[in-house]
């Protein structure tokens, strides 16, 4: 069945993204991993939407559009934060951002 393949793709993308967020130490790569998660969500939404008929398809597409636009705003802020960190410490290695502990 075709739906399964889309869901599998979504699940693989999601897991890759989660792995990237947890394992990567470069802030920019973490941001890219988060994008992967959001794309997994979009694939899921559109695949499910197509399965449930017209009304659900429209809802899923609207949902996906909102995810895309909001993700753009989110990543804009994220890159700005990474730039800020880079300016103040000339590194975007997340392991070095550890002034506060405990």
């Amino acid at each position, binding site marked *: 069945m075709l739906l399964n393949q889309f869901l599998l793709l979504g699940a693989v993308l999601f897991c890759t993204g989660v792995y990237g967020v947890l394992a990567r130490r470069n802030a920019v790569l973490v941001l890219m991993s988060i994008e992967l998660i959001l794309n997994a969500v979009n694939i899921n939404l559109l695949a499910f939407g197509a399965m449930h008929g017209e009304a659900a398809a429209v809802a899923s597409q609207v949902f996906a*559009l909102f995810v*895309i*636009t909001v993700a*753009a*705003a989110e990543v*804009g802020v994220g*890159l*700005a934060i990474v*730039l800020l960190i880079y300016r103040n410490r000339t590194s975007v290695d997340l392991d070095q951002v550890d002034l506060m502990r405990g």
Partner: protein
Amino acid sequence: MSELLRAYLTVVVFLAAAGMLVGVSLGMGRLLRPKRPSAQKAMTYESGVDPVGSIFGQSQVRYYIFALLFVMFDVEAVFIFPWALGLEVYGVFGLVEMTIFIVILALGLLYAWRKGVLRWV
């Protein structure tokens, strides 16, 4: 021949024509032009700027702000397209809603302009 293959035949014909067009025009150029090579001419073309430094050099931070502005407005346009396709259907209601949306977007542009982001120093 099946319908599918016939459709692909068109693509093949197009590919062949495109290849021929490039081959013929470049071949004609090679035959006709004078040959005077120099170091300047062999340099990589980089929009008229001399390519200096490593290819992994950092770019200006200003590019980031421009790119961000572009991405934001580009992505927000996605809400305008469905409305534009059904302009008559949505009527006055749609027009008013979209005007509000675009005015708020334009406020973002106004903000960027007042903060001097649009000026390339």
